[in-house]
């Protein structure tokens, strides 16, 4: 790998037609895609929210279903962004060879990785907003502060898409992604205050867990959906952005390396 390979990604608006390409493909299957994206969190919400909620009633003074709703919207955005940046991006990169075709045009790999990252974030935002609408219908999150949630969901999507694209750059086959889900994302869900507060964990684990990207995301989104201001909001935003920027940088480096062979 030559020294120039470590250069920062060069960002240009040339990514836009690639984003648009993915959007056009999605549009053909949009209804099925959105239903799939809402169904899973909705089932979780109803099963745990009403099932478990009838036993737990409330956590820290918050009705359990509302507590769970803010956690599961973050989780769904994370999952949607990760799926898109892993399985779908891998199909385009490795199986369909769409990326190879893109490189015959004036596009560069950096443009392509940027487009994939922003597209995965956009798709995750679409499912996030769809879930938000369902929450409104359940009477959850009807506060002015909720207006800040969609931009935040987009940042959360960008962050998890960037991290997932690192895994994509390293993958040899689809099987590889199972490890990412079972060894990284699933444990993170249980450490990030989606179903129960982090304080329930041993203190050292709780402290480590509070720096996880999903936990940071939940800490920002939950108060907003309850009509409150998040604590340490700037600090937490910086953490999320740092994961996003660093993740994206490493993803571009590893993708360049993959294609230099």
């Amino acid at each position, binding site marked *: 790998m*030559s020294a120039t390979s470590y250069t920062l990604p060069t960002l240009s608006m040339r990514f836009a*037609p690639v984003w648009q390409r993915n959007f*056009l*493909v999605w549009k053909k299957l949009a209804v099925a895609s959105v239903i799939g994206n809402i169904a899973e969190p909705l089932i979780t919400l109803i099963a745990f929210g009403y099932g478990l909620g009838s036993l737990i009633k409330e956590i820290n003074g918050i009705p359990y279903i509302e507590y769970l709703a803010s956690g599961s919207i973050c989780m769904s955005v994370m999952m949607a962004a990760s799926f898109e940046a892993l399985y779908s991006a891998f199909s385009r990169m490795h199986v369909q060879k769409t990326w190879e075709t893109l490189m015959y*045009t*004036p596009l560069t790999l950096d443009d392509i990785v940027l487009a994939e990252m922003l597209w995965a974030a956009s798709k995750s935002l679409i499912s996030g907003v769809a879930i938000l609408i369902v929450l409104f219908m359940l009477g959850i999150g009807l506060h002015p502060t909720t207006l800040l949630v969609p931009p935040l969901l987009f940042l959360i999507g960008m962050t998890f898409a960037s991290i997932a694209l690192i895994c994509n750059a390293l993958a040899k086959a689809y099987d590889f992604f199972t490890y990412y889900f079972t060894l990284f994302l699933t444990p993170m869900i249980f450490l990030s205050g989606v179903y129960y507060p982090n304080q329930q964990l041993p203190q050292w684990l709780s402290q480590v867990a509070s720096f996880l990207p999903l936990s940071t995301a939940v800490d920002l989104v939950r108060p907003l959906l309850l009509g409150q201001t998040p604590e340490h909001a700037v600090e937490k935003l910086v953490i999320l952005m740092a994961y996003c920027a660093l993740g994206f940088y490493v993803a571009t480096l590893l993708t360049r390396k993959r294609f230099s*062979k």
Partner: protein
Amino acid sequence: MSAKQILNVENLQKTYGDADKPLKVVDQLSFSLQAGECYGLLGPNGAGKTTTIKLCLGLTAPDSGNITLAGYHVPQQARLARMRVGVVPQGDNLDPDFTVEENLIVYSRYFGMTREQINARLVWLLEFSRLESKRTARISELSGGMKRRLTLARALVNDPDIIFMDEPTTGLDPQARHLIWEGLKALLAQGKTIFLTTHFMDEAERLCDRLAVIDHGKLIAEGSPRDLIAEHIESQVIEVYGDQAKAWGDKSGKLAQRVETSGETLFCYTENVETLLQSLAHEEGLRYLHRPANLEDVFLKLTGREMRD
């Protein structure tokens, strides 16, 4: 570099693999293409053809050497250079999620073309690739030949000055190949430059103004098909087949200037066929074919007959 040169490659060097076990894929390669010509790159599998194309397009950086494409330095200005280039890759990597027309429209956007610009070109592209009736068909509904024609049309969306083609007719039936060749000739008549790699010697002989034969990343011969044949090989060939071929060769092979054996077939190369034909006329149980030497003979002489994987 003269004004008429559209691609110029000087002392190109590319090594893959570890520092302790380097593999020279392209080794001090130099050649140049004049605007408007068809230039063929021939070589056995693993000779470095695809890597040379990737280097010329700026998709991978050379260890050393200079490349100028369409007036731009590659890889430094590869983005600008690729604005002027069309590429037909080895496999058909068309977008399976889109129709014929959508494939062309979506691809044109990557060049920054507006919808008006691509609309103005769409009719010609579909006509050129004879896919007018398949405008709204999905890729899975197309035959192999149609896919290749669409891939060629896609390479032309930006009205390129030079078209790179990596084995443009591999896997096509004769009808489909002829249709592609007609298309390529039409492009050459329009003044486009074509840079192609191929395994088919008849294709190279038919289309290319000039050819380069490369092996192990090195240029081993260059010239027009006719000059290469005249320069590198005897003008006549007699192929002798059958069980008795070897016995006949041991006895009379010395009548030819050069004899090559491939399995049970003898290839006798000579300028003067009369004595050989007389000798063969008296043999029982031998079949033979007398023909003029062609590019395949040159290729096999230069790169050897052993299998490459």
